[in-house]
């Protein structure tokens, strides 16, 4: 949690990859921290929300937060992805 806050404080959102129990995966962006420890999550499926860290760790109780992508660098203009 401290490291998430550290990244957010440095203006670097992180990406969380969820491994669903169903077998497939899903990626959300964690873009902010609230004073009570909740996280600001941008989820292409669910929308934009304030969620508890525990809820996110369990991938909304549908799996687990399996991989964290952080220290993300913006893509360079014109660079191939």
């Amino acid at each position: 949690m401290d490291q998430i806050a550290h990244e957010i404080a440095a203006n670097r959102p992180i990406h969380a990859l969820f491994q669903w129990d169903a077998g497939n995966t899903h990626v959300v962006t964690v873009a902010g921290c609230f004073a009570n420890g909740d996280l600001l999550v941008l989820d292409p499926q669910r929308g934009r929300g304030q969620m508890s860290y525990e809820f996110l760790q369990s991938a909304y109780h549908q799996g687990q937060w399996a991989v964290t992508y952080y220290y993300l660098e913006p893509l360079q203009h014109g660079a191939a992805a």
Partner: protein
Amino acid sequence: MAQRHKFSKSVRAALAVLIAKRATPAARAARRANHPVHLAEGFEVWHLLEKALKTPNARLSKLAQPTGDWQHLLRHGGKATEIVSSRRESGGRKWKLQAIFTSPLAKRLDHVIKWLDHQDDSDALVRLLVVPKFGLHALWIEEEHSDKVVLIESTRPILALKPDVLYPGSQFLKILSEEKIAPMPPLKGNALKISRQKHSGDPFEHDHLARERMGRNR
């Protein structure tokens, strides 16, 4: 519409306090404009996992699993824009709020609730059915001898499943069991990939690559 779960006044009051502490910018703006924020319908969330789809002739109550989560719709200014996820704490008396999010799902759920109000006047119980394999949300009406299901939304389009149609449970299960998912193409991009080992609960567990990279960039 069939029966939604009736929360007691004390539970509604407890949830309202938790929600007020985490009001979204839209809800705060509604309150400033003197538009009351209503804690509207709440549904118990059940999951239908992939292995359950292999026996499509059984009742949903035998195949789906309760998650312990509840989802509630928030309405303000005549619109439904937010979904609240809550859970009863282990002792059973207290509730905790897990998430509140502004979501297109709220609008779809609101539409389906209103549609169902005109279709079904039974006193059967309505639950929220989530099928993680398809990112599918549906309302499940459990009657004494049968199930009915109406689609709310599905992340993966299922052509055989139409919106605003009340499917018998067996037909709904048959459609899902016959649906094939094409494998996703591999992700591209420059995001740091961290070892996909079994996770211990700490999302930064496998951070050695990131640390090396951070060191290089300092």
